């Protein structure tokens, strides 16, 4: 079905955070007519697979909207219950639930708020009925993805300022946001900079490095083992730019394994003036604060526990439901992060909770 230009009042629009209005285009979504056979986990993975630009939180939001489409519910309460149940199912299916949680929480908050008719600035006559609200969400499903993409463009605009002429950017992880920033900066004729890409063995890192090269940037690739050496030896590095999977409330990040290492080295290696910035959309903020030890376990991430010393030199069967080694994540303390480049501007780590507060 085609979505029209959103005709609803501004206040009713979906709260993926970019304030800029993205151009709405027609979009044909696959219909899940059979409500009984709706599988949220499958839908989520289909969505994630079908669009390589989509982020995990947005895929989670879209699958929840698909759920609304597939399951006719007559009352608001029924709908909320359903959404919560399926959200829990989706979360349980993922060894790293944080990105899904970020999106699903955002959607749930929005849903609750619109069902209560309490969206800010809504005058009484504009309060929509349950059916209208539901229909509105369904009609505008694609807006989430569009806004997320617009957010990435916005981040590129902000982030370009942090790429300095004559300097070197150190980056890793194959983040799409980071790539976008570097490509935009490369298009700027006044900036001549070079990139050192840390390759961590994942295809997406190599692909990102290739993409940057194709755009005419001078890219040098190094292995993870060389990070300390390069940071110490290359005084021209003034920016370390990483992406992330999730931002925690306290301003820390849960990101691809190795990020914490690079962040720690950036802080501790002397020589030159280096800043670590994280480029991420605000919809990646997850309402969790990692305060209990061990951090990742308490965040609900299931990955190999090194502390168990299970690796005895012989091949043992991997536990089911754990993250693949290449998808493992680590937690970077806010202390090590100089700032976040978001679509809402540059935020310090301590400002993250203010953004969370935005949508509660």
């Amino acid at each position, binding site marked *: 079905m085609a979505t029209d230009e959103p005709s609803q009042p501004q206040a009713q629009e979906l709260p993926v955070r970019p304030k800029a209005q993205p151009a709405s285009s027609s979009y044909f979504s696959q219909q899940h007519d059979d409500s009984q056979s709706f599988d949220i986990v499958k839908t989520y993975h289909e969505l994630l697979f079908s669009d390589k630009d989509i982020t995990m939180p947005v895929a989670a939001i879209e699958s929840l909207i698909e759920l609304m489409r597939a399951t006719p519910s007559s009352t608001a309460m029924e709908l909320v219950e359903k959404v919560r149940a399926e959200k829990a199912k989706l979360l349980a299916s993922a060894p790293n639930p944080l990105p899904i949680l970020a999106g699903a929480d955002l959607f749930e908050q929005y849903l609750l708020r619109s069902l209560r008719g309490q969206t800010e600035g809504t005058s009484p006559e504009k309060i929509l009925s349950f059916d209208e609200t539901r229909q509105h969400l369904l009609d505008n499903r694609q807006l989430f993805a569009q806004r997320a993409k617009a957010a990435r463009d916005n981040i590129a605009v902000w982030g370009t300022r942090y790429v300095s002429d004559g300097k070197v950017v150190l980056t890793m992880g194959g983040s799409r946001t980071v790539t976008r920033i570097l490509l935009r900066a490369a298009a700027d004729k006044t900036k001549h900079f070079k990139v050192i890409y840390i390759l961590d063995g994942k295809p997406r890192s190599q692909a990102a490095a290739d993409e940057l090269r194709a755009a005419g940037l001078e890219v040098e690739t190094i292995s993870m083992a060389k990070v300390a050496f390069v940071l110490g030896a290359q005084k021209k590095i003034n920016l370390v730019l990483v992406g992330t999977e999730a931002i925690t*409330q306290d301003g820390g990040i849960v990101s691809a394994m190795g990020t914490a290492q690079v962040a720690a080295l950036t802080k501790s290696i002397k020589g030159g003036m280096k800043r670590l910035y994280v480029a991420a959309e605000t919809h990646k903020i997850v309402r969790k*604060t990692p305060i*209990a*030890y*061990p951090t990742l376990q308490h965040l609900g991430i299931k990955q190999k526990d090194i502390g168990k010393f299970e690796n005895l030199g012989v091949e043992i069967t991997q536990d089911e439901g754990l993250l693949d080694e290449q998808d493992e994540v680590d937690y970077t303390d806010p202390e090590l992060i100089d700032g976040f480049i978001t679509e809402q501007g540059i935020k310090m780590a*301590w400002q993250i*909770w203010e953004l969370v507060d935005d949508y509660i």
Partner: protein
Amino acid sequence: MAAETHPAPAGTPAKPGPTAAPAAGKPSAPATGGEPAKLTPAQLKAKAKAEKAARRAQVKDARTAAAQVPPPQHGGGDAKGAKGKGKPEGPQGQNKAAHRPSITGSRPVIEKDVRSSIPDFFSHVPMAKRVPLSQAHKDVHPEVLSVGQQMSTFAVKDSIARLEATLRAFAKVIEDYETPKGNSLSRHLVPHALNPQIDYLTECRPMCFAMGNAIRLLKAKINNIDINDPEDEAKEGLLEWIDTVINERIKLAEFVIARNAAQLINDGATILTYGRHRLVEKTFLKAKENGKSFNVTIIDDPFEGGGQDLAKILREAGIPVLYSPNLGGLRPKVAAASNVFLGGEAIFANGSLNAASGTADVAMTAQNAGVKVIVLCETINFDRERVSVDALTYNEIDPERNTAESFRLLYDNTQDRYIAGVVTEFESGGGNSPAQAILALLRKQEDPLIA
């Protein structure tokens, strides 16, 4: 006062004997001419400063005495008068202190000024004080009298225990209260029935932040009562409200915090705590009840010794405990812990924590060792308006340890950067948030207790 004729050195501004003289009343006494007028400006300044400190102490002491002996003018009985500020007094300023001795004879004399040894610099820091029952204001309710005594002797000590005792006593006050003819409850109750109680409690021991918050809410609640409401109904409503506060803000909060915090304890963890705090104790027991096996390291407050009791309780519950009677060897103990759990008296609007002296040392050491500090605190303890960046703005002097050589402050201030998260009963903020996040939410939220 003889000492006042020459610049008094800091620390001895108030002489034991005359300080007890009530400042109130007797406007007739003229300025005594004992003051030589040939002091240098610097001397004058020093003298004025010393006198100010002395006056503060005196005003405080005088409150009770003034209440006992009806002063010549009216109004001494109500709350405003008891504050000793707005009263008409004869000569103001320096002369006031100078002429005080002339009226000493007729008043009861307290033998020893407990604050005499406190240096000027700390003169603003209040101290709990045993107010003899005979000197209490006549309007103070017996229930409040006993609560006041318990507070001044630290039998009721931590903020929540004091809050609960206060609320229960106030419930009695409201129960026994009858609006005089020609008055309305919403106008009369606070100034004539509640304020004397509040003043008395404050005098026994400075109010804690939780009490301040609750009393503010209670006053707002009373103000909101319709003048035309029948008195019985209004009183019933207030008593019900007090019950709600006790149930929701104290009992339920304690349960929720213990439950949430217990979830943060992992099997095999070592949790370090300082002194004995009710919430931390509840959390450990809850975690044990949930089947977690973990160790506890107790760093005791060397002056309070509550950690010993905590150690016994935890041992009995089957939790292995490492007990240290003081802060010695803090660093390795903290570094070995998985998390540090601390309780607090209050959290300020800038996220800093007001807690038993020594808490800040533990928190800073933990931060330095990379161990995250979790603070457990009910939201009633949050001060949304005030900030604190040092331990001197809001503190108390330990009345038990206040000698000529030294004195001890009860609390210290832990800045928010040493605290990883605060567990409160307020959950929609995602449970365990930085203190500032919770405060932001609290500020945004209309307090449900007022409406």
